[in-house]
Each structure stands twice: as C-alpha cells, then as structure tokens.
C-alpha cells in the first residue's frame, strides 16, 4: 500500500477500540474486534479500553506512539464530530501530526442502532478495516490561522438579544444589534408581571433597553433585517436592510408633538403593540418606553402616502427639526463582524387553528398574550380587566396547552404556559376577585420558586380541573348556562364530563418557531430541528453553539424558554463570543482544496463551480489556483475537475478509494 505521495513509509498503525462503558461493548464484541484489527496489514498494535476518551485512554495511545513508534492511529469509538479533536490532541501531544488519525464511528452508527451482536461486530470490523487502509495514506496537515474581527452581530432585540448585546458591549467590544420591529423589547415588553416573583416586567426590562439605546459600544438597528451573510468565522460580511420609518432617526427626539398634531384626532388603526385591542394613528410611537424613542409612519394609513393631499400638520409640529421625510427609502448597509449571536425568539400559536375553542368567533375568548396586555397598566384598558363590552368577568376559564402537546398541531410542551397561566390566574383573582378555573393536562412547575407559586395559587382558591378542554361554546343546554361561554371537558380526576359556564376564556397559547425561522437558518447556515427550532451543536455540552463556527444561538429561537433561561443562554453566548474575539485568531480545519498544477489543463470548470469564488485563474501559468482562506472545503471542485488535478486535504481521491475498497474487501 505504501504510496508514492506518502512521505513516511511504511505505516505503523495503532488501533484502539473503545467500550464506551457498555454503550459499545454491549452490542459489539470489542474483544474480537481488537483481535481482528491486530491482524490487519500495517497494524502494529490493537487495544481495547473502557473509555478511550479518558486521560488514561489517551495516555495509552501516547504511550504506544512513543514506545512502538506508531505513525498512524485509528480510534474506533463514538462519532468523529464528538471526539476527533480530543484524539487529534493526543496525537499532537505525542509528537506526530494530528491528522494521522482516523476515527471509526462504532457507537452512533453501530452499537446504538443495531441489536444483533454478530451483525454489529461484522459491521464494526468492516469499518475498522477501511479506516486502517485509509489512514495509511494520511498526510501531515496544519490548521490555518485567521484573524478574528472583534465586532459582534446580535440578531433580535428581545430580552435574550438585549442581555447578550450589553454583556458583549460592556467588555469593550463593538456590537451591532439588529431588530426587525421599530423598537427593541421583544415579547417581554408585553408583560405586566413576571412569574414567579411577580416583579414588574417593565421595571426590570426598561433600564436594560435604555442602556442598549445609549451604550457607546452598541450600534442599534431597529426596523431592520439581515439581507445576506457572507464569509466565515472571524470574518463575516453582513448586509443589513433598513426599512424606512419616514422619520430621520438622528433628528427625531421622540417628543411626539407630530402624533398630537396628526390630522386624525384619534387612532383608527389596530395598535400592533396592544394586539389590536386598541387603536393608533398613522404616525405613532410603538409604546411609551420604546427604544429608540423615535416615532414612525405607517404608509398604509397615512393620507399623504395615499393622496399626497394631507395638510401635513405633523411636519408643522416637527418644525425646524425637520425629522419627517416622506421620501425616505429602504437602505442596505454592509457591516463586518467576527461572530454572530442569533436571538430571534419565538411566535405564539395561532389560536384560530383550534376551531373548537371559538377564538375569533366568540368575542370573549382571548389569547394569553392579549390578556397580558389587558392586565398591563400601560395596556389598552390601563390595567383594568374588562371584556369587550366593558363588563368585569365573574368567572374566568384558563385553558392550558393550546397548541402544545398535541399531534394535531404542535407536539412539544411549550414549557412556560403552566407558569404564565398561574400568573394570569393570580392577577385576575387579585385584581377583580373572579372565580378562575385552570384546565390543565399536567401541571409543570419545575424551577426555582415555581412549585411554591403553584402552592400560593391553591391558597388563593383558584380552581384546577385536570382535563384537556374539548369545546368552548355559547350554546346552553341548561338554564344556568344562558348567556355564558360554556367550557366542556372531562374532569379526569373525578371521572366525568363537566360543563363550566364562564364569562371569559383565556387560551394559554404555546410557543412556536418564528414563521421565517427556516429562511434565517439558511442565511446563517445553521440547522433546524424538524419543528423549526435552531439546532445547538450539542444538547448538553454545546447548548449555544451551532455547527457553523462563529454563529451562536440564545433564547427561545432554540426552543421554548422562560426569561431566566433566555438570559442565562444570552450570557453563555456572549461568553462564547468574547472567548472567540479575545483569542484574536481562529484555527480553521485544513480540509481545503488545492490544484496539482502539473495536471491542471486550465479548463476553468472549477471556477464556475466554487460557491465562494475561492478559485482564480492565473493567466501567466494558465492554471487554476485555490485561495485557501476563502475555500471552505466542500470538495465540489475536486469531484468536478475533469483532469483530476484537484485534491482536497484529508479527502483525497486515493484516501476515499482506499476506504471504499477497505469496506468491501474481505476474504
């Protein structure tokens, strides 16, 4: 096998089989596997060990490299995506090139997915044999170092994005915070109180929002979206699309005299921030504590945009400040950052999708988010809990798990609904003394002080009925039900069906991925779970990292989360970003392509294929050349090159051929 292009010959290979406790040993005959490996050509030694990744395990390898002067190593254990770095480290420590390693995945791809020990062992043997043959061809490689741009992009101005931005900015790094809405604050800004401590959301959120607005190290882009992302870890080029507010942000001081002066004396258009429960004018400030304190104009509503015949009293009111600009256009600006934190959050379940709960048909059926506004002092009723007809409800039913734990809509538990339902139950009971019924499937209150809060609610005399509600109807079948909303559900603990008449129904809607989560995911080149939640690199050990270096996730975009968890993740993501930035440079995998100039025919096929324009054509030599910094190592050009004059490090044709033959070659 010794290959002309392979400097050191012949290969002396050590094969190491990991038991991974019983994870592998339980299904694969590790002993037979090691014995088999020992007999393979070029195998100098083969050992099995309980945990290869442990220190003694690695020491075992290092020892052999020194004592038996091995020049190649095969480790048969878990997925290379798990421990390749670990074992490469071991090789390097022992003084041979880290890339003289080949890992064999006999856990995720063998022991965990097969049951028959004989079959599993055969498969493991084939894989090991292939690796042994392949590794002999491995060449010494060095990782590439690239500088890291210390600037950071944070996408999403909810509590997670805000916290991440502040943490990073406080360390002296510059942050670009991009928010789609005209103000930051996210969902938390809608809330009145937060569970379980009941401290006022505004009181704890507003200071952080203003801090962001005034921070010297933060460039705040509101009413803006990401248009495109290019580059790689340490060097991302990001285009930001800035939507027109029709207000020149630098000139507006948020005095709102224009809003006062608007020709419409009172609001006529659904106020987004109050979820349509109140009306706003064509020119408006999203809400009193909005950051930035800049108004905006809704071109759909403003007369000037429709007829150009408006008196423009707003312009008068603005006076020589001249902040209003009806001709403002969308702008696209480019920023350079080294790393990115995605904190794009969630959206709530659309209650219309559950037809039997009558949302949108029965006026007194509300979503929990609407009720958050109703109980909020700055809300449409300034905190008064009243129905659409202005009366106070005497009986209120809160329906849990709307759009959660349901194969017909969303299968997952939304994690926060139980707690916020309790919070709303408490607020309603406290403010108007109504009888409150909670309809739940399971009460889920894990978390510091959560169960205690549940206890408190029981003391307050809130009713709990264990059963998923089948229907909300205004169709009475008993005199006591006339003119009420009737909630029909089985009281599963009592064992019979109950009909409970109420005045107000609150649908505790679940959390869903943002509707454009998949587009965002593509733009930033990360993965999504089947449901659409952003996928973390490892559920336990890399919860805020993604499979794309330099891109991190925080908050509910990764999965349903309450405020404390979101903030914790934001902190974690900030720490990751800072660690990256302070490292000054990053090491890139050396899987890049290169041209074998003697063979290159200069046909330029590769130039058109490369998505990163990393390949250029050198006129004088009439040959292609790969810019290794731009090359991301997909290898497409290699497979495309008609003259076979392209190679990809660690994925050379010969190496793969050898692996394929190895897999299939048995006597």
């Amino acid at each position, binding site marked *: 096998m010794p290959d002309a292009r392979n400097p050191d010959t012949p290969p002396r290979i050590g094969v190491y089989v990991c038991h991974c406790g019983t994870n592998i040993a339980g299904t694969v005959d590790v002993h037979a596997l090691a014995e088999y490996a020992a007999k393979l050509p070029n195998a100098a030694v083969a050992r099995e060990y309980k945990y290869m990744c442990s220190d003694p395990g690695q020491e075992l390898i290092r020892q052999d490299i020194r004592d038996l002067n091995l020049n190649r190593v095969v480790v048969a254990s878990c997925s290379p995506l798990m421990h390749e770095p670990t074992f490469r480290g071991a090789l390097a420590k022992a003084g041979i090139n880290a890339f003289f390693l080949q890992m064999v995945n006999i856990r995720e791809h063998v022991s965990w997915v097969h049951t028959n020990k004989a079959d599993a062992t055969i498969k493991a043997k084939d894989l090991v044999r292939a690796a042994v043959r392949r590794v002999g061809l491995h060449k010494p490689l060095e990782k590439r170092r690239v500088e890291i741009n210390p600037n950071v992009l944070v996408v999403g101005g909810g509590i997670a994005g805000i916290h991440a931005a502040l943490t990073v900015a406080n360390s002296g790094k510059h942050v670009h915070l991009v928010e789609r809405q005209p103000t930051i604050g996210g969902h938390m800004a809608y809330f009145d109180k937060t569970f379980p401590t009941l401290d006022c959301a505004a009181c704890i959120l507003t200071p952080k929002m203003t801090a962001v607005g005034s921070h010297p190290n933060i460039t705040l882009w509101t009413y803006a979206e990401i248009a495109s992302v290019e580059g790689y870890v340490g060097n991302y080029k990001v285009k930001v699309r800035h939507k027109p507010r029709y207000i020149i942000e630098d000139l507006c001081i948020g005095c709102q005299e224009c809003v006062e002066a608007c020709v419409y004396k009172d609001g006529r258009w659904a106020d987004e921030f109050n979820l349509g429960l109140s009306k706003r004018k064509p020119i408006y400030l999203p809400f009193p504590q909005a950051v930035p304190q800049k108004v905006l104009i809704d071109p759909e509503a403003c007369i000037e945009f429709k007829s150009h015949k408006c008196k423009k009293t707003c312009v008068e009111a603005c006076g020589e400040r001249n902040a209003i600009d009806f001709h403002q256009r969308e702008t696209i600006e480019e920023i350079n950052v080294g790393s990115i934190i995605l904190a794009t959050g969630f959206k709530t379940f659309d209650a219309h999708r559950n*037809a*039997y709960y009558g949302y949108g048909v029965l006026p007194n059926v509300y979503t929990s988010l609407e009720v958050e506004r109703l109980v909020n002092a700055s809300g449409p009723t300034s905190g008064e809990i009243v129905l659409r007809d202005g009366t106070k409800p005497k009986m209120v039913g809160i329906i849990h798990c709307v759009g959660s734990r349901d194969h017909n809509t969303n299968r997952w538990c939304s994690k926060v609904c139980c707690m916020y339902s309790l919070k709303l139950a408490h607020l309603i009971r406290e403010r108007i003394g109504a009888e409150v019924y909670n309809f739940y499937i399971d009460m889920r209150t894990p978390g510091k002080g959560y169960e205690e809060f549940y206890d408190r609610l029981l003391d307050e005399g809130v009713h709990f009925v264990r059963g998923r509600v089948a229907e909300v*109807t205004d*169709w009475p*079948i008993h005199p006591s039900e006339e003119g009420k909303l009737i909630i029909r559900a089985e009281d599963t603990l009592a064992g019979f069906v109950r009909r409970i008449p109420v005045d107000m129904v609150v649908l505790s809607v679940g959390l869903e991925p943002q509707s454009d989560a998949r587009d965002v995911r593509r733009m930033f080149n990360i993965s999504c779970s089947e449901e659409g939640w952003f996928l973390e690199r490892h559920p336990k050990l890399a919860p805020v990292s993604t499979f794309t270096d330099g891109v991190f996730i925080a908050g509910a975009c990764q999965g349903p989360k309450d405020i404390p968890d979101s903030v914790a993740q934001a902190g974690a993501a900030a720490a990751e970003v800072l660690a990256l930035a302070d490292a000054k440079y990053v090491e890139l995998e050396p899987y890049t392509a290169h041209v074998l100039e003697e063979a290159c025919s200069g046909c330029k096929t590769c130039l058109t294929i490369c998505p990163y324009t990393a390949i250029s054509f050198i006129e004088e030599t009439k040959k292609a050349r790969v810019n290794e910094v731009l090359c991301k190592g997909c290898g497409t050009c290699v497979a495309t090159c008609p003259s076979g004059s392209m190679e990809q490090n660690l994925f050379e044709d010969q190496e793969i051929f050898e692996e394929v033959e190895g897999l299939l070659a048995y006597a």
Partner: protein
Amino acid sequence: MKYTYYPGCSLRGTGRAYEESLLAVFRELGVELEELDDWNCCGATTYMSYDEVQSYALAARNLALATKSGNDLMAPCAACYLALHKTQHYVREYPWIGHMVEHALNVIGYPTDISVRVRHPLDVLFNDVGLDAIRAKVAHPLNGLKVAPYYGCQIVRPYSIFDDQRNPTSMDRLLEACGAKIVQYPLKTQCCGGSQKGTLPEVGLDRVGRLLAGAVCGGAEMIATVCPLCQFNLEAFQEEASNAHQFHIPILYFTQLLALAFGIPLKEAGLQRSFVSIKPILAEKEIAYA
C-alpha cells in the same frame, strides 16, 4: 361526466327518498350514474364490531368491482362512504389486513386493485358539477327557506376529504345556490345516535332531542341531511323526543331540496314519503312546486 353509483342497503329501504331524489337531480344535471354491478353491503359500522377484517373484505369487493369500471365511485350513504374509505386506508396502513383482504379477493377471483376514487354526492355536486351549473338549473328558488344543514359525523370524520372537518360548508353553499337561507347550526357535525334509538332508546332519543332543539332554536324551518340514518332518526322520533319544544319539522335529504328547486315533481323526489308534510311551509314561503 359519469360515475359508478353505489346505493347501499338503506337507500333501498327507509332511505328510498334519498335514492329517488338523487337520481332525479343527477338526471336533471345530465350526469350519468351507472349502478355498481352486483354490489353488496359495505359492512357499515355494525359489522365492524362483529369482525373488522371481514367488513373490510366486504367493502373491498365493492371497491374491486368499481375500480374495474374505471369511473369514480359515488356513495350517498355516510356509513358506506366511510366504510369504503376506511378500507382503502387500512389495507395500506396495516399490511396484515391488506394481505388477508387481497387473499380473500383472489379466492373469489377478483382483481386486488381497490384504488377507485370514492366520492360523496356533496363532493361531486360541489366540486365537479359546481355551483354555477346548479344555479343555472334552479326553476323554483327556495325563497329564503330557513334550513339547518346537518352533515352528521361520518362524511367528515375521521377523514376530511372534500370539506372542512369542523365546519363543513359544501352543503350550505349548494342550498344557498338554490335560494335557501342557511341558519347557524353548531351541531352540524354531531352524531345522530346511529342505531342507538333501536338498541338503547333513551340514549338515541336524547341525541335526537338535542339535534332538533339545536336546529329549531336556530330558527330552522327544515333540516337538510346527507345520510339515511340521520334522516330517519331525526324524522321518525320527533314526537317521542318532544320535550320543552314540540317538534314538527320536515327532515329532507339535501338532494330533495335541490330537486324542489330544480322544479322536479314532488313524487319523483320522494317528497311524499316524509312524515312531516312540507306543503304548508312551501305554501308559506310561496315556493312553487310541481
């Protein structure tokens, strides 16, 4: 347009009027119906509780025959409609059922292809014929006759093939096209009690009572049905079910209402067969009829 027609047992008994009106309406619309050759009982819901697979086999025989014919299969009876659909689903979903059914079909020398498209008259009239063609045929508009559209369970559940499962509207639209006024009827997809009236009378009666009350409170002057069993239950037990309200309301097949609007003579649409005479209300609403 041509369809293979699968009447099912009820349309030859208590549901005669359904068949009569259905055939009349399709004749009027110039849609050809060819009765399925030597069809047998679909097994309905009753056989299910006796022997599931045998009932699939029964349905499969009809499906095999129909598939051979090449045209879509039209089944007016809700029970048949469901039984046929369910069979097609389950022979796919459960290979062992598929095996048993195929084997049985082989034994009687039938092809095992049962993939024919099963349709309900509502589906055909609404989607294939279309509202415009219906409107074009209306000779005696129903002058705002207040109708409660009652779909019952089995044409929308468990499979919602041609209409919304929770709030179907195809019949509403068809009858509106004939000049009827559709009243709010939240119970439109609730169960009529099936055969309970016969087997557990008090239960069946309770169902009938609720459904009638629902329609009457909604101001309905008539209830339109799509299923012989629903029609029978709602019509036959009105007196027994009368409690707070005295029920005396005509229960017609939706095809009978179409027939009326098309100006088809009452007798040809089996309208003389209903227990509650419709002539008074026709007179009141000044709806002409032959």
